[in-house]
């Protein structure tokens, strides 16, 4: 039950953020184009995202563990 609720909240958050971004692009009349990235560049972005996710996870985990 708790997992189900969490999943719903996560989905809602994801959807809200997606809508926020869509709206920001639309309002500023900006087109989002997929850039041509090399394999290395793609990997670097993935690594960056992973590091940042871990950083946020560690910080929030510290707070909830306490």
């Amino acid at each position, binding site marked *: 039950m708790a997992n189900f609720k969490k999943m719903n909240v996560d989905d809602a958050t994801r959807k809200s953020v997606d809508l926020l*971004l869509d709206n920001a692009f639309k309002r500023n009349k*900006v087109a*989002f184009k997929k*850039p041509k990235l090399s394999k290395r560049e793609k990997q670097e*972005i993935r690594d960056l*995202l992973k590091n*940042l*996710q871990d950083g946020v996870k560690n910080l929030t985990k510290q707070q909830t563990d*306490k």
Partner: protein
Amino acid sequence: MGESKVWAGDRPTVKCNSTAGAADRKWSALDPASFHPLSEQDTEELEATVKTIQESFEQIIIKDSADVEVTTTDTQAAVNLQVALQAAITLIISISVADSSEAERLTTDLMGNLKTHQVNRQQTYIENSRGVRVTTTDTDLAVNLQLLLQVLVSLVARLDIL
């Protein structure tokens, strides 16, 4: 004792009645006439200093106590992480939007939407105590980090590289 070094405005003045006599320092939550050691502060003055987007202030006072363990949020680390997330968002936008002025406008707009007004002020006073464990958290910072991360994930997902 933990004190944030993240300041964008004037630091609020917090006075502690540390020079008061022992009789004055006895505080009881059930006694309306009792004088709280931190109650001298001028809250109106504090409110006036809150003009910035994000402030974090924490004060922990421990007196005449033993075996006291205090754990606080590393605000500096959290703020560094926040800056890193903002930089990553700016990066993804700048490589995905051809026109640099459009990218800048979009980033400014987006960051403006994501800004939350944060004021975290915590005061903890421990006196004549033993075996106390205190944990303070800065929920505002954690929420802001989660929000920035969600935006970054959504942007990276649009690049189709995940």
